[in-house]
């Protein structure tokens, strides 16, 4: 049989999916053991026991200096920034995207501006943000907003513009005014697209969050990683990275489930996604 025609069974698929992870773990363990054998105080590839010690220390014991459970403090701080930044971006993206997509007069005014802003590399204006908004929470949230908002606006604008013109005409013959069409015809149809767009921009949002925290913060997942980097504390950095990945995965999954639950017509039309 041709390779392109052989498909894995269900259990086979699970095994195949796990395989790369198992290989990575095995390679890591071997390499770590080899280095530690050479030099027991090697910091680059800590043993699994060092990881569990570090996790125990960061997550389940109060810090000796501040008395806080650092992992949870960092997680709460980062999540708050991230959710604020993404939430505000989604709201702005939805409003401006729909308005731009549906109303040519507004599009003529706003679209070039949005395009221009979307071309500015957000990291390049990070210093400006710190100067203008200070070193507090605002500048970090602003970095996320400036980074992902233009993408959301442009995506939502495209979604709105790609609604079949027949639908908009039909709504007008049903006696709807612009506002009614916006909230009853356009808005519900672009909401699932908004969730999708947010899922895709979450990666960038994390990037901007960690970059912002690395430069100026007093707590946060990104702050912690960059702080302990000075001590080569791989036993903490790696679990933090895994934790961030898990958080990102959970958010993605939650958004997907919300979309499926709230917009069955959207997923019915396009099959499983």
């Amino acid at each position, binding site marked *: 049989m041709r390779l392109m025609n052989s498909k894995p069974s269900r259990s086979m698929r699970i095994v195949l999916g796990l395989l790369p992870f198992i290989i990575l773990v095995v390679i890591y363990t071997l390499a770590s053991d080899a280095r530690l054998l050479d030099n027991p105080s090697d910091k680059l590839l800590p043993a699994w026991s060092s990881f569990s010690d570090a996790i125990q220390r960061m997550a389940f014991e109060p810090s000796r200096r501040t008395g806080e459970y650092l992992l949870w403090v960092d997680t709460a701080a980062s999540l708050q920034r991230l959710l604020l930044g993404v939430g505000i971006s989604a709201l702005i993206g939805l409003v401006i995207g729909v308005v731009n997509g549906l109303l040519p007069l507004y599009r003529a005014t706003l679209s070039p501006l949005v395009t221009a802003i979307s071309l500015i590399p957000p990291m390049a204006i990070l210093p400006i943000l710190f100067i203008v908004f200070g070193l507090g929470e605002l500048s970090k949230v602003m970095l996320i907003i400036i980074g992902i908002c233009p993408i959301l606006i442009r995506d939502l604008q495209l979604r709105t513009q790609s609604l*079949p013109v*027949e*639908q908009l*005409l*039909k*709504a*007008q*013959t*049903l*006696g*709807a*005014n612009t*506002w*009614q069409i916006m*909230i*009853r*015809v356009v808005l*519900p*149809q672009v909401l699932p697209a908004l969730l999708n767009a947010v899922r895709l921009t979450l990666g960038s949002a994390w990037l901007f969050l960690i970059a912002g925290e690395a430069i100026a913060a007093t707590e946060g997942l990104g702050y912690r990683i960059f702080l302990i980097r000075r001590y080569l504390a791989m036993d903490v950095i790696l679990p933090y990275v895994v934790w961030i990945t898990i958080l990102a995965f959970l958010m993605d999954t939650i958004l997907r489930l919300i979309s499926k639950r709230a*917009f*069955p*017509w*959207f997923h*019915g*039309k396009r099959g499983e996604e």
Partner: protein
Amino acid sequence: MTESIIKNAVKPIIEIKKVWKEYGDHIVLEKLNLNVQAGEFISIVGASGCGKTTLLNMLLGTEAHSRGEILLDGKPMPTEPNATRGIVFQKYSAFPHLNALENVMLGAEFAKAPLLGKVFGQQRKAIKEKALDMLTAVGLGHAAKRYPSELSGGMQQRLAIAQALIKEPRILLLDEPFGALDPGIRKDMHKLVRELWQKRGLTIFMITHDLSEGFSLGSRVWVLDKPRIDPQQPERYGAQVVYDIALNSTQIIPSSIQTLIEKEAAVKNTVQENTHE
């Protein structure tokens, strides 16, 4: 009351007076002079690209005519779509995010709730009942809870018709409504449309590619064609209504149209053959 009925009977619902449509040098339609009485069913037929859709769009209000005037009840036609003229397109007429019942309710809700576009409580109940009646009238009573994507092509068109009729428009525009349907289902749809037209006293304009459909369904047929053609400059002359045939009377179809029908059928057959290959 009686006076206005008498007046309506005499006065045409739509008057098209010396209407031209041109895009720059490109003349699409020229010298249209037509009166339509309330209750007529007009089939608009003609070759592709001869301006059928442009004519319908002018009646809908999405395209402006270049010269002349179009009157609705003696007043200039509104320049944007509104509830006086309902429309059914070939597809995309129903809203995919609403189920069949909600799709039909929408038109009534727009009128009752200017701010939210959605009604609640007692009002909602009344609208729901009316919408269900409408769905039953088009044969979709059993599918009220289904989304458009779960309906077949014919059912979607039934839904689109019900959706338009809840506004009780006096004029219904049909833009190739059955073009994408199977022949058997098309027959059922013809029956439904004829029934609704007669029961509700609608004035219907229907674009169709299918000449026999146009003749069997309409009470009047407009054949659009270009009577003059300049081979060097085909945009120089626009299409006109070359035949305006009332079908109520036992009028014989002109032989030239008979050949047109046959030609169209022949073309269709070759197309089918080609697609089969």
